[in-house]
Structure formats: C-alpha cells, structure tokens
C-alpha cells in the first residue's frame, strides 16, 4: 500500500472510530443543529401535503449505485424512506422518480417498508418509477409527474446534472415549492439560481440527520465538522511550509 492509500485508509478508520464513539456518548442527548431553511420548509411541506391530500415528489436523480455518485443516491433513498414514514397517514403516498434500475428498486423497497411500518396495505409499486436512463430522458420523464400528479412540493435529492433546471422550472411554473441538492457542481450553481431552497455542498448528506436525528446521524455531522477542520489545518500548514521552502 502506498502512502496515499494508507492515509485514505487511516482517514476511514479514524472517521469510523469517531462516529461510533460520538454516537455512544451522545446517545441520550438532544441533538442541536444549525438551522437550514430548506429542511424547515420541507417539514412544513410534509405536514401540508398530508392535510391537503396532495403528493410529495421525491426525485432521486440519475446516478447509479455502481458509480461514484452512489452516496448521493443512498442519501436520497434515506430521505425518501423518512418522508414516506412521515406521510404514511396521508391518502396520497409520495411519488419517487429515478434514472437507474437499482435505485428504482431501492425506492420501491423504501416505500414498501414505510407502508409496512405503518401497518398499511396501500402500497403502490408505481409510486416509485424509472423515468429514463439518460440525463435528459430522465428529466423529460419526471416532468409529467410534477405537472399532472397533484404534487404540492418537490424534493430533488440525489445526483443531477444541468438537466435539473428543467425540473425546477416546471415546478416553478406549477407553483410548487422545490427543495433541491446535488453532488454535482454545475447542478448546484443552477439550483442556486432556480430552486427555492437549494442545498449546497455536504448539506445534501445531512438531510437524513435533519429528518431523523438518531445518534449515528448526529455523530456523522460532528465527524464531518472535525474532518473539515483537520483538512483546513493541513491545507494551512502545507501552505506555510511551502512558503517557508520546506516542502
């Protein structure tokens, strides 16, 4: 193993130990998060959709589980699962769209699991759909869902590219609110201009913690903060050493 691999492995082990330790230490404490407007509005949108009998549309993007974008997709599936649990009292379950076969199966599984947890028998396999396999065909297939299925709010969370602008534009025209986050830089810039509540950077991965807040979710956010500070220190020290001619 070269030193880069060793450093990477060390970082993973350190993160795992920190996360397990912090989750154990904070298992009884009440989590405190900084306010992210998007999540506060999402909670309101969930409540409103149950009251109005409208649907929430959760778009998981077009990333696959065999690609580096899998973490964003899995974070999206976790959000879908949580939203499905919170809206299980509603007549209209949320509708999920994705651009990958495996993600579609996971989203169907998430909807089924939440129905089972609520002892409901209203599971509809068509509530989780594959809308297209290429970026634009995925977006084109998701547009009718936003327009025609009595959707009151859209949660776009996963891996999107520039095609996400078509989804946010359609949502805006239909007067539905949009919370959106992507792991792609171009999509984040577009979402900043076009979505009502954009999630920037790692906020996408914090969605699970904001909607659920179990000890491991809280611990994972603290670990992210610790690692971020470590990286900041390493960058600053490296810059100083480079200026001093040591490196």
């Amino acid at each position, binding site marked *: 193993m070269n030193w880069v691999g060793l450093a990477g492995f060390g970082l993973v082990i350190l993160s795992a130990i920190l996360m397990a330790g912090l989750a154990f230490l904070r298992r009884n404490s009440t989590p405190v998060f900084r306010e992210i407007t998007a999540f506060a509005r999402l909670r309101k949108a969930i409540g409103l959709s149950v009251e109005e009998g409208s649907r929430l549309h959760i778009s998981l993007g077009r990333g696959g589980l065999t690609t580096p974008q899998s973490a964003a997709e899995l974070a999206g599936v976790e959000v879908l699962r949580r939203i499905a649990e919170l809206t299980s009292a509603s007549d209209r379950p949320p509708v999920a769209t994705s651009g990958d076969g495996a993600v579609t199966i996971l989203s169907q599984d998430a909807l089924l699991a939440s129905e089972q947890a609520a*002892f409901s028998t209203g599971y509809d396999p068509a509530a989780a759909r594959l809308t297209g396999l290429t970026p634009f065909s995925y977006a084109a297939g998701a547009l009718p869902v936003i327009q025609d299925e009595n959707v009151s709010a859209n949660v776009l969370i996963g891996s999107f590219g520039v095609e996400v602008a078509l989804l946010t534009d359609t949502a805006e025209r239909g007067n539905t609110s949009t919370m959106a986050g992507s792991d792609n830089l171009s999509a984040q810039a577009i979402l900043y201009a076009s979505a009502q509540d954009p999630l920037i950077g790692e906020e996408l991965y914090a969605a699970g913690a904001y909607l659920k807040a179990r000890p491991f979710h809280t611990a994972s956010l603290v670990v992210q903060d610790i690692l971020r500070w470590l990286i900041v220190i390493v960058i600053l020290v490296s810059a100083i050493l480079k200026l001093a001619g040591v490196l």
Partner: protein
Amino acid sequence: MKLKGLFSTAIAITTGLIVLVGYFVILPPLLDLRIAILNWFIILAAVALFVGLFNLLSVHANKLRNKEKGGIYSLILILSLLVTLILGLWLGPDQPVMASIFNAVQLPAEASLMALLAVTLTYACIRLLRPAQYAGLRSRTNLISAIFLVTALLILLGTAPLPFVGYVPILSDLIRPFIAQVLAAAGARGILIGVALGSLTTGLRILFGADRPYGSDPSRGGK
C-alpha cells in the same frame, strides 16, 4: 421479518467491509473476493435495469388503461421501447440500424432539451432579480443574488468576444481569470471537499447499519 432484516443487514455490512478493506489492503484472497463481489453486483445492477424497464412499461401501460392525461405519449413510449428493444436484441447494438435510431432520434431530442436549458437558465437568472416579496418562498438575500448575477455577467463578458470590440482588455485578461481560477476554483474545491466528507460519512452510516436503504428497519417495527 425482523430476523430477515437482521440477516440482510449482516450481509450488507460484511460485503461492504470486504470491498472497502480490499480497496486499501492488497491481499490476494481478499482482492479476489472483492472482485467477485463487485462482479456479482454489476450483474445484479444489469438485472435491475431490466426490472426498471418493466416498471417504466407498467406505469405507462396503466396510464393508457386508465385513459389518463397524456396517454398518447405513453403509447408512443411503449411502442418505441418495444421496437428498439426487439431490434437491439435481434440485430445487436453495433448494427448501423441501431446507430441510426440513436443518431436520428435520441441525439436530436437530447440536444433540443440542452438548447432549451439556455432559455430556462436565462429565465432563472431574471427571477433572481425579482424583489423578495414577489419571489415566492425564495429566502436568499438580494445582496448574494446580486453578487451571483454580477459574477455571471463578468464571466460572460470576459469569455465571449463582443462585436466591434473583441475581447475587453482588463476584463478578459485579469478579472475573468481571477474569478474563474482563484475565487471559483477555491469555492469549488471547498464544496467538493464537503461532498467527499458527506459521501464518506454516508457510507460509514450504512456500514454501521444506521442507514438501511434496503428492506425493513427492525428498529421501526412493522410486519
């Protein structure tokens, strides 16, 4: 169901750990096992693609059956999908007929949607200029929106040559490179570091079994 959930979690955690450790630690038996697991996963993902296609077909068939709005598009989609699938299976993906279907239908349709994006993004930028009370739920301050728009304009003016003027001297030589290569690059790296850390902790949560994107969660009850 509870035992089934625990069993699937145990399998997921074990395979996840083998693949993760096999990525860093180069041991022949571990490496072979990791490659075997990844190959199984690729085969399963290909099967999942077919399951996804059946899902797509059933959703649109239901639309047709229930005479929902836009049923004609569902009919076109089903016919196109079946024709392409049969031709692809019969002729193979490298045949000129298959290439021409892609070049004459898929490519122009996607290029048109890409072109549509230019209009959509211009419209989104104009919306940023609207006062907060007309911008629905938009919460960002006008100062940040103004900075966003001014930066976009500076980059556009500095990148594209203007008629009769050509490249604008200071803007093209100094300001645009500074924004693109220093400010934007620094911001992008910061965001990418955040995304990488988020991916790492998401993966670890799944390895610890705190997030279970598969099956029912035993801690949440249910059947």
